[in-house]
C-alpha cells in the first residue's frame, strides 16, 4: 500500500459552540483521488480549509507526510506550498495578469528562477488550452477559463496534494465540462487529490474512494461503484435520491 500523504486523525472543528466536524479521521495515500460529497452546509469546505490551516482546529491533528499542520507553527507557509487549493470562485488576483497570477508564488516563495517558472507556466497553460491568454487580465476571462488558470496556479507549486472545493459550482453549465476534463486529466497523471463536488457522474468517474460527510463525521466511505450502486446507509440512499429526483424532473420538463 502506498504511503499516506495526508493523515487526519480525530479532527474536531467548532465555530463558537457549533460543532461542525467531530472526531473525524481520514488518510489519503499517494496518487489517490478522494471525492467528498454531502449535503450543503455539512462541513465539506470547512474540512478542506482545516487541511491547509485556513481554519484553526479544536481537536485532533492533521499531518502532511508526517509534518504537523498547525495555525501557530512557523513552517506553515512552507507546508502550504505543498498543498494546492482551488476555490469555488477562482480567487484569481485581479491586479495581476494570468501569467503573473501563476508566477507570483513560485518566484516569491520557492525562489525558482522566473525564466524557468515562466516556461513551465506557459506549458501548463497550453495543456489547459489557455496559452494565448497568458497576458490577459482575469476580468477578461470566462468563469471556466478563470478556474483553469486557478488550477494551473496551484499546479505550478508542485504540490503533494490538491484540494478542490466545488470548483464548478459557480460556473455556467457549458463551462463545467472544460474544468472537469482538466481534473480527470490530473487524476490520470496520478496526482493525489481531495475533491468536493456535486457533479455525481464526475465523482463516479474520477474517484478512487467516495466519502459521504454528514452529521459532523464520515458517514460512509467506499469505492465509487459500491457507493452509487449499493449504498450502505439510509442517509447515503437519501442523498443519492436527491440527484435522481433532479434528473427525473429534468426529463419531464
Amino acid at each position: 500500500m502506498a504511503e499516506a500523504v495526508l493523515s487526519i486523525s480525530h479532527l474536531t472543528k467548532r465555530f463558537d459552540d457549533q460543532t461542525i466536524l467531530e472526531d473525524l479521521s481520514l488518510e489519503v495515500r499517494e496518487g489517490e483521488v478522494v471525492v467528498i460529497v454531502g449535503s450543503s452546509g455539512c462541513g465539506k469546505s470547512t474540512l478542506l480549509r482545516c487541511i491547509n490551516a485556513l481554519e484553526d482546529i479544536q481537536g485532533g491533528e492533521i499531518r502532511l507526510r508526517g509534518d504537523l499542520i498547525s495555525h501557530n507553527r512557523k513552517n506553515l507557509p512552507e507546508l502550504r506550498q505543498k498543498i494546492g487549493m482551488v476555490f469555488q470562485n477562482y480567487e484569481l488576483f485581479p491586479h495581476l495578469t494570468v501569467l503573473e497570477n501563476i508566477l507570483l508564488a513560485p518566484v516569491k516563495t520557492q525562489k525558482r528562477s522566473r525564466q524557468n517558472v515562466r516556461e513551465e507556466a506557459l506549458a501548463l497553460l497550453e495543456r489547459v488550452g489557455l496559452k494565448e491568454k497568458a497576458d490577459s487580465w482575469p476580468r477578461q476571462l470566462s468563469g471556466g477559463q478563470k478556474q483553469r488558470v486557478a488550477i494551473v496556479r496551484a499546479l505550478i507549486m508542485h504540490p503533494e496534494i490538491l484540494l478542490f472545493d466545488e470548483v464548478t459550482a459557480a460556473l455556467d453549465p457549458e463551462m463545467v465540462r472544460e474544468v472537469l476534463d482538466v481534473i480527470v486529466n490530473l487524476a490520470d497523471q496520478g496526482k493525489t487529490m481531495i475533491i468536493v463536488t456535486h457533479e455525481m457522474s464526475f465523482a463516479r468517474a474520477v474517484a478512487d474512494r467516495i466519502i459521504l460527510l454528514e452529521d459532523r463525521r464520515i458517514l460512509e466511505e467506499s469505492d465509487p461503484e459500491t457507493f452509487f450502486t449499493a449504498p450502505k446507509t439510509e442517509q447515503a440512499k437519501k442523498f443519492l435520491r436527491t440527484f435522481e429526483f433532479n434528473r427525473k424532473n429534468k426529463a419531464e420538463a
Partner: protein
Amino acid sequence: MPDLGLEVLWKGKNFVRLLGGLWVALRISLIAAGISVVLGILLGVAASRKRSVSSVVLRVWLGIIHIMPQMVLLFLMYFGTTRLFSWNLSGEVAAVIVFSLWGTAEMGDLVRGAVSSIPAIQRESAEALGLKPAQVYRWIILPQAVRRLIPQSINLITRMIKTTSLVTLIGVVEILKVAQQIIEANRKASPNAAFGVYLAIFVMYYLACRPLSLAAKKLEKHWR
C-alpha cells in the same frame, strides 16, 4: 478692457518671487504628503486588524485631527512648543509636522478602509499558495488597496496644498505672503494689483494640482 492689474506681475522679480512662494507651499505639502503616505500605510495596515491597539490609536488620533482646526494645530506646534519645550522650530518645519500629523491620520484611515474592503478570501488564497503574511500584504493586499484609495489620497494631497495658505500665519513666506507683499508695495502704482496677483495665484494653484488629478485619472484607467 478694465485694468486687471496684471502688469505688476512683470515688474522686477515679482513673478519669480510668486513662483518661489508657490514652491515653498508645494514643498511643505509634498514633503508632508510623502511622510503621510509612508506612515499612513503602516498605521492603516496595523489598524485594519479589528480590535487592535493601532485601530484605537488611529480612531482617537483621527478624532482629534477632525475636531481641531488646522490653524490651531499650527499655532500649537509653532508657538506652543517654543513655550513648553523651548524647541525652536522654524515655521516650515512646524508646518510639515502638523501637515504630516493630519495626513498620516487621514491616510491611515483611507488605507485601513481600503485594506478592510479586500475580501478575506483574497488573502486566504494567497496564504494557501504559501505566501508569508508580509508577502501577502506586499503583493496581494496593498496593490489592490492602493488602487482603491488613489482618488481619495489625491484629494487629500490637493487639500493639503490648498491648506498651506494657512502657514503664512506662523511666519512662513509662501505664495500668499509674497502676494500680499507685492500688492502692498504696488498699492499706489497699480491699485488693481490685487486682482492680477490673485488671478495669477489661481492659475498657479490650478497648474500645480491639475497634473495630480490627471495622473490619478490615468492610473485609475490603467488599473481598471
